[in-house]
Every structure is written in C-alpha cells, then in structure tokens.
C-alpha cells in the first residue's frame, strides 16, 4: 500500500504542530431553504494534504469556497491562519492573498497573457514592481513546466496547460494554503495527468492543500486524510489506507464501489 505513496516518509516533515491552518467549527450554510452544509467540523494543520470527495451536491465545493469566503456561511466559525472569517470584514482581500484557489473552469483572465495573468495581482495587490512580479511569475511558470507559453493568451493553450497556468497564478501570491475545486473535472482525459503531476509535486513540497477531486489515485498518493461528504455532512474522515481498505460508513463504501471500477 505504501508503495503507492508519492510522499517520501523519510523526508516528509508531515503536518506541523501549532496553530492549525484552517479550523471549521459547527459550520452550517443554506442556499435559500436548502441546507448545503450541516454542522461541519474540520481542522487542517499546516502542511496537511486533504482530499475531499463525495457525490455531486454533497457540499464539498461549498465547503472549500467557505474557506476563502467566496461563500458566506450563516452558522459556525471558519478560522483561517488564525483569523475568523466574517461577513463584511475589511481585510478580506489581504486574507485571501494567503489562500490560493484553483477552479474547475480555470477562470484565467482571457484578455491578459499568461504572464499578465500571473503578475496582475502581484503588481496591483502586492504593489510589486513589474520586473519583480515578472521574476516571480516566471519562477512559478517554470514550476508548472510552462514558461515557454508566457506570452500567449489563455485561448491559445490546451485545457491542461490553462489549468497549470491557473495553479502558477495562485502560487505567485505565495499562499499558505491551496484550495483545489475539482481541478481536473473539466479536462480531457489525456490532460489530467499533467495537472495531477504538478499538484503532486506541490504536495511533496509540503504545501497545505485541500483538494475536492474524484481522482482516487491522487488521493491515495498524496492525501494525509480523505474526507467523504454526503448531503452536507462529513460522513467519513480517514487516512487513505483506512479509507480505501476499511471504510466505516455504508455510504462511503457504496460511493467507492461506484467510482473505483
């Protein structure tokens, strides 16, 4: 089983002790009358890699979108890097700079080149010089193995390339936490691996990651914990070995039967 792990236990520092990166307590959220999240509790330590899976409509995307306040919650607490997220807070943009997010639909800015996509927030939000920003952008584009596309527009790239640019753009802000919302779900099958490879490399560097994904191979390779959600609740929470080997809940077992053919 451990042969499947991409994380080298000899060099991996593992989750750090001390203040958690994310603390979610008794989180509940409604869309109108429909309750999407029901009393969710989750603590993510620095350096921890979490994979969240579950059927569609189970609230997994909403959960990670609450972590950078793209969705406002109605009940409970969301504390990120020691700061509680509240509606109408003034320093939200500053807090968000520490939380990178990668979307299913990439959401690159179509009117900007790859390089400009990466430097925009560095120059505008972090007030860096253009030269400084470019250096950081190129370093991160190299990290996702796409520096030669820097002058192109997103529409000229394949889906896999666009998603790697989106990862680089998020990394440029030097985030403490990375959120991935089904990063490979909109990709053609042959492009999934190039994106997962980049994510695996990131995980090996010790980045705190929360990934909503159905890529169970990836979950097995890098996750410290896998969370299974259904109908707005966390049903199962276990390290990969236990999650795949001996899941406790019947719902988890049925889900795994359906996706691991």
């Amino acid at each position, binding site marked *: 089983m451990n042969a499947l792990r991409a994380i080298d236990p000899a060099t991996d520092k593992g989750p750090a002790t001390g203040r958690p990166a994310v603390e979610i307590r008794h989180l509940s959220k409604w869309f109108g009358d429909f309750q999407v999240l029901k009393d969710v509790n989750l603590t993510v330590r620095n350096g921890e890699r979490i994979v969240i899976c579950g059927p569609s409509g189970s609230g997994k995307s909403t959960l990670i979108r609450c972590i*950078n306040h793209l969705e406002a919650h109605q009940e409970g607490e969301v504390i990120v890097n020691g700061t509680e997220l509240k509606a109408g807070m003034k320093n939200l*943009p500053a807090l*968000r700079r520490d*939380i990178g997010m990668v979307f299913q639909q990439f*959401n690159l800015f*179509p009117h900007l080149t790859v390089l400009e996509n990466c430097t*925009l927030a560095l120059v*505008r939000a972090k007030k860096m010089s253009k030269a400084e920003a470019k250096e950081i952008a190129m370093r991160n584009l190299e990290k996702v193995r796409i520096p030669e596309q820097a002058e192109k527009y997103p529409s000229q790239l394949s889906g896999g390339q666009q998603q790697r640019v989106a990862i680089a753009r*998020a990394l440029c*802000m030097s985030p403490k936490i990375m959120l991935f919302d089904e990063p490979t779900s909109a990709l053609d099958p042959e492009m999934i691996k190039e994106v997962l490879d980049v994510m695996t490399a990131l995980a090996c560097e010790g980045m705190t990651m929360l990934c909503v994904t159905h890529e169970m191979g990836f979950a097995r390779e890098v996750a410290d914990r896998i969370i299974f959600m259904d109908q707005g609740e966390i049903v199962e929470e276990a390290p990969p070995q236990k999650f795949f080997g001996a899941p406790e809940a019947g719902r988890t077992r049925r889900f795994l039967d359906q996706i691991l053919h």
Partner: protein
Amino acid sequence: MSFDLSFAIRIIPQVLEGLGNTILVTVLASFGAALLGFTWEILRRSAKPMRYLMRFVIDFIRSTPVLVQLYFMFFVLPYYGILLPAMFVGIFGLSFYYSGYLAEVFKAGIDAIPRGQYEAAQSLGLSSFDTIVFVITPQMLRNIAAPMGSYFVSILKATPYLAVIAVPEMLGSAFDVASETYRYAEPMLVAGILFLILALTVAQLVQRLEKRLMLSTRR
C-alpha cells in the same frame, strides 16, 4: 420637374455647410450617451432604492419619443426659467435619449462576463476597484464594441431631429436649399448620400476598433 444632376452637384457645398455640426453633435452625443449610459448602469447595480429608481429612469428614457424630450428641453423648460442654448439641447438631448439604450448595452456586456472571473479576481485578493478596472472593464469593452457602434450610427442618423430646435445641421441645410428653390429631389438625395457615406464610415471605424479589441483580448 425632372431631376437635374448639375443642380444636385452645384448644391453640395451648401448642404455640406451643415456637415460640421452634424459631426460635432454625433461625436459629442455619442460620448455623452456612453458616459451617461455607463453611469446609469453602474447606479442600477448599486443598493436597493437606487436600483429601483434607475430601472425606472432607464425605462422612462427609452419609452418616450426623442422629439418629445427635445421639445420639452427646448420649449417647456424656458417657462420655468431654464433657458438652454439650442446646440446644448441638441447634444444633451441625444446623449440623454441614447443613454437609455447604451445602459442596456453595458448591462448585456457586463452580464456576459462569467462569475468565475470575479471569483478568480477575489481569490487573488484584488480590490473591487482593481477587479472592475483590470478584469471586468476590458472584457466588457470587447463584448459591447459592436452594439455600441451601431448606436453611434443611430445617433448620427438622429441628428436631423435637431432641425426642430433650430440647430443647423446637414438635413437642415438641404432643407434650406429646397425651400429657396422649390426643388426637393436634389437636396434630399444629396443629403441622403452624404449621410450614407458618414454612416458607412462610422461603421467601418467601429469594425476596425472591434477587430483590434478582439486581437488583444481573444478568448
């Protein structure tokens, strides 16, 4: 009375006397209409009482004839002590009337931008101001270039309305020729052709602008 080609050619300079005003009004009213329309649309997107007010204002502007609006500004307002020069009423009147339509153009241009663009900007920690200026507006301009251009052509073709408030423009000059000579065919044809040339020129310019925007903002 048969059509007299040499007469038609002879009166071209007289008809062209109105050209300057036609172009001036078109350019300023287009600019004004875009500016007002954008303002209406931004206000329509703000908090509640303002949003409802702007919905009403925009519908009101679009649902009353442009001539009524011009007459009101030129003939009614003076009764209340507001005396505006004809040229100002002409430019402001057309700006005001077309701003209602351009507000709708801006609305469509902004609505067409996917939510993910805002979310990406937010998650990068960009301020609302930077998001509007660097992410939303450039994409909106690309979306609206074509429909906005066709309203600029409409504004050009609406300039003859200003004859009713005595702003000298191209159709007015043509009409002066007609009433002096009792010949209508030639002045109307000359004015019509001149308007056609102007309209096609504006359309060409807009198309070129659109292409340039597309090049630098392709999806």
